[in-house]
């Protein structure tokens, strides 16, 4: 792999020739989820918005699943007054897939304000999804006011400490990490010593050829630390994964799709099912991005998909892993 490739940001807003209006439009297609397929030990991730462009052959592999993120149930501001509707639309997309995914990952911010009824609504909507198993990690919006007690009661059965856990599916080792607890003033996401020690132990016995998929809410790579888009001690976590030939890291939090390859690790962030956020540094703050209603409703629309296709080399990672 060339040196240039090593730190390549696959979604480069700066050189895509999109003006601000076009940029907003391209952001508006956010809002679905990602179809992930493991092929020859390497994970490919496709935005559900663009799934019509993907051939059935490309969608077949040893294992496939769907990642959804940031449903923010309870959010009702102009950026999206109907987050239940857009989550349902994402479920419809999932149910329409020709290659049925085996399970779903939700990478956090299930709720907006950690209210029981918000979690209930998401649970209800996801019940109509064909994949029955959903694996969750919390976002900071899911652990408000009670240090994550409610989250653990609902979704944390069998998890360790603050909710981290691992499981195996068809030879792939999945690790769910929690980096939204005990955040320190001025800091980023945090895993903490206890979790890091657990991770080291969890992967120690695995063969180097085992494909690893790590999922957590806040990105485990420095997307934009100025906005808190990164995790303080992620380098330590990644160090424990160095020996593996294929490592995929799936995150949410930043409400936009981004991908990056670094050595043996491929990083992906998923879009939100609720509302888009600006690209790093492209606004004063990472607040919800308001797009015209017709565009928001068109998040799953064909027009936007075609637009994106014309403008971006996005959503498909041509994996460089051996």
């Amino acid at each position, binding site marked *: 792999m060339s040196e240039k490739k090593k730190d390549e940001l696959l979604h480069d807003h700066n050189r895509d020739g999109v003006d601000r209006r076009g940029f907003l439009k391209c952001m508006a297609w956010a809002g679905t989820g990602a179809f992930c397929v493991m092929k020859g030990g390497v994970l490919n991730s496709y935005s559900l918005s663009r799934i019509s462009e993907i051939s059935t052959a490309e969608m077949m592999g040893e294992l496939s699943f769907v990642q959804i993120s940031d449903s923010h149930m309870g959010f009702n501001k102009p950026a999206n007054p109907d987050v239940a509707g857009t989550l349902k639309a994402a479920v419809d997309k999932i149910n329409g897939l020709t290659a049925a995914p085996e399970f779903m990952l939700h990478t956090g911010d299930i709720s907006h304000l950690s209210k029981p009824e918000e979690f209930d609504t998401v649970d209800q909507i996801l019940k109509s999804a064909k994949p029955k198993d959903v694996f969750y990690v919390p976002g*900071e919006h899911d652990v408000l006011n009670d240090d994550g007690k409610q989250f653990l009661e609902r979704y944390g059965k069998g998890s360790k400490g603050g909710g981290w856990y691992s499981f195996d599916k068809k030879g792939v080792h999945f690790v769910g990490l929690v980096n939204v607890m005990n955040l320190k003033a*001025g800091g980023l996401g945090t895993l903490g010593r206890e979790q890091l020690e657990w991770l080291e132990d969890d992967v120690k016995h695995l063969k180097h050829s085992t494909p690893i998929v790590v999922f957590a809410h806040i990105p485990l790579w420095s997307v934009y630390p100025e*906005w808190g888009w990164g995790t303080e001690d992620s380098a330590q976590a990644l160090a424990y994964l160095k020996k593996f030939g294929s490592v995929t890291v799936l995150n949410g939090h930043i409400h936009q799709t981004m991908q990056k390859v670094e050595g043996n690790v491929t990083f992906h962030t998923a879009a939100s099912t609720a509302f888009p956020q600006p690209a790093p540094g492209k606004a004063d703050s990472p607040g*919800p991005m308001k797009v015209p209603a017709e565009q928001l409703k068109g998040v799953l629309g064909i027009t936007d998909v075609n637009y994106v296709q014309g403008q971006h080399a996005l959503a498909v990672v041509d994996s460089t892993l051996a």
Partner: protein
Amino acid sequence: MRRSVSIAGLAAALVLGTLGFGTGQKSYVASAQEKMSMMEVKIDNFTFGPATLTVPVGTTVTWINKDDIPHTVVSTDDPKAFKSKVLDTEEKFSFTFSKAGTYPYFCSIHPKMTGKVVVQ
């Protein structure tokens, strides 16, 4: 209306200037007339405004969230001097500072957001 507001602002600035308090862009010192009404910190665009607020002992400070996203107001000290519940849009949190000192705080959801209250 607009004119009277600007005159009041000018008067406040003059008072502050005369008393010799520093008023940096990110700090704010209350003038005598404003003590009753202005002890408010606005949370807007993922920032606490003013980031540094100087008040006399006994002042009640109220934080109000003007963002579309929830925030919290949590003391950085150990033990914590104060800790709000999560504040949704337009929700408020108040705390009365009865002892002099510097009280740093942050938003526990977005820890890059920090501020402090200086109580004199």
